[in-house]
């Protein structure tokens, strides 16, 4: 079969452009540096949500451990930054100058061997994507070849998140423990703390997010994406057609992990530290919720979902610090109950039909590109 898939329909191109307008023009123009930095932080979660759209929305694989990959990416970045911040001069007060402060506090007197490569920026940049992807590959290989899926997979990934958190906290001489890695200062000599640097990082973050979105779009529109959807809906039929189902699942899971890891690295750069609280179960579930709010079938929806969930959390907790959990809880429940397809579903059902020249794709509830199963 040599059928060509177009990467974008006109409508999708317009929607991408609108999001780009929002991220690159409207937000920077409207917000002061502090708020813009906050939105930059929200957008780092959007990487995870976009990855989840591919794994969960398209592939039907729900991972409750995306925080693991977000965290691994973030920690790789943080290790590099921490080493750079721990020059012998800056750490002269320690009993062993030149190693990160938390190592010194825990009587580690020598940089562990697996820290050494993180002195190099190129290695770090590769590791940010490679380490989490490799980890995802191992998990995926073990699980998908044995046809673990659905709820089981969700709970096992959740347990992995719990283990990694305990492990990082327990090995604090090498990882910084509960505190995480704090007081990160420069990236290859460039101070990441002033507002001007935050602005640059915001745009870098936005650009990377769009690269991930494009990659996601490409995967979804291509053969892999169609097979994934087919697998989600009728796994056995795909298998009987001669495809190795596990390989596709592993691929998309690794891709989601890589996206999450890039987000994590950008988080470290923009927020200035990394801590195990970003790995555990709570953040991992929050990431899934962002994806659900945005619409689990829509790449762009995931970005909006990340912005809305985090924005709501900030807004509610500033307005009513004592009661904001009520608002968040109610938001999650009502989204699941009343808008199971999230914001993207609202768009499909209510906005899209009113746009000139666009008819509903299918009557009733939109289950986008599910028809691909029939290919």
């Amino acid at each position: 079969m040599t059928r060509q898939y177009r990467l974008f329909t006109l409508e999708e191109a317009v929607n991408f452009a609108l999001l780009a307008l929002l991220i690159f023009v409207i937000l920077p123009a409207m917000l002061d540096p502090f708020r813009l930095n906050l939105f930059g932080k929200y957008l780092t979660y959007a990487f995870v949500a976009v990855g989840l759209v591919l794994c969960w929305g398209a592939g039907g694989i729900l991972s409750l451990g995306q925080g693991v990959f977000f965290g691994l990416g973030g920690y790789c970045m943080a290790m590099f930054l921490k080493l750079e911040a721990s020059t012998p001069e800056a750490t002269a007060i320690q009993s062993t100058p030149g190693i990160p402060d938390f190592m010194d506090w825990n009587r580690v007197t020598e940089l562990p061997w697996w820290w050494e490569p993180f002195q190099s920026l190129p290695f770090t940049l590769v590791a940010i994507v490679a380490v989490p992807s490799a980890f995802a590959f191992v998990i995926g290989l073990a699980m998908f070849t044995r046809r673990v899926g659905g709820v089981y997979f969700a709970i096992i990934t959740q347990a992995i998140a719990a283990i990694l958190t305990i492990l990082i906290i327990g090995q604090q001489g090498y990882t910084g423990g509960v505190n995480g890695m704090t007081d990160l200062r420069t990236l290859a000599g460039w101070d990441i703390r002033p507002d001007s640097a935050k602005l640059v990082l915001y745009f870098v973050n936005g650009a990377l997010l769009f690269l991930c979105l494009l990659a996601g779009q490409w995967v979804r529109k291509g053969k892999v994406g169609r097979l994934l959807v087919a697998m989600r809906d009728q796994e056995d039929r795909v298998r009987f057609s001669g495809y190795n189902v596990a390989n596709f699942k592993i691929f998309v899971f690794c891709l989601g992990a890589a996206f999450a890891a890039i987000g994590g690295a950008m988080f470290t750069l923009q927020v200035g530290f990394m801590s195990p609280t970003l790995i555990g179960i709570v953040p991992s579930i929050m990431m899934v919720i962002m994806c659900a709010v945005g619409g689990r079938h829509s790449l762009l929806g995931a970005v909006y979902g990340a912005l809305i969930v985090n924005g709501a959390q900030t807004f509610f907790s500033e307005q009513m610090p004592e009661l904001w959990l009520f608002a968040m809880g109610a938001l999650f429940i009502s989204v699941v109950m009343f808008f199971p397809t999230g914001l993207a579903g609202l768009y499909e059902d209510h906005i899209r039909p009113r746009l000139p020249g666009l008819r509903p794709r299918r009557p009733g509830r939109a289950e986008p590109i599910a028809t691909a199963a029939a290919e």
Partner: protein
Amino acid sequence: MFDGYTMGELGAIFAMQGFAGLILFSVYVLMALGLAIIFGQMGVINMAHGEFMILGAYVTYLCSLFFATFLPELFGVYFFVAIVLAFMASGSLGMAVEWGIIRHLYRRPLDTLLATWGLSLILQQVYRSVFGAREVGVRIPEWMRGSLQVTDLVEVPFNGLLLMTLTLCIAAGVYLMLYRSAWGQQVRAVMQNRVMADAVGINTGRTDRLTFGIGCGIAGIAGSAFTMVGSTGPTAGQLYIVDTFLVVVFGGAASLFGTIASAFSISQVQSVLEFFLSGSMAKVLTLLTVIIILMLRPQGLFTLKVRK
């Protein structure tokens, strides 16, 4: 580490260590039984399970206050009243939640996870608003706080004995209900084939509500029992959720016996490791072992053969 101890002393330590493992086992079984019903039988991922437990703990707290104030002479036995009330409170809340939220989501099991997560946030804040952000101290009657002197060296805590007895009773009760009662038959029928069950005249809606309610009620009993050994605060429920799910999944979700077997093996491994290693590493190793076994045997220890 065993230098300079007599055989008797070592024997005593090991006896008590075995007992510690049994206490942990009881804790795990109590945690997991309710979830085994809700998750295993109904397929609902109830992230608010911990909050239902804490509701039971708070009911116990209120009960202890009530008895201390109005019926001080009966304080010694208030705990048994508290258990019943905790079951009823968590059970009714569970049924209300099933009616309001869960029943709309049976076709989308993963979505129950998100909705119940929202529910758990709300419940935590309710507890905080009602009972305050601090922990509450549940007073335990004197007789339950002591220990039984078996020999000079071996002391067996009463609360541990009570916990085990309770676990035994509830496990037996659940078994009888699920496998020896008409209701249990209906529950299993609905689980295996909802449409068919409906067709043969089972009121699936009512069965679901009751099942969910009983699962939550058992969580309430667990919470009530845990006031003896753990803390009671708005967020305490979160502590249990990962362990609980792992126990159930490890056991093979749909199997009651599997849940008990998995609780037994996990608790024994953990308590032995804890004795020889530091607590943090013991926990990591235990979880890791569970995960590796799950990767090798993803369906859990025991499974029902069900046609999918």
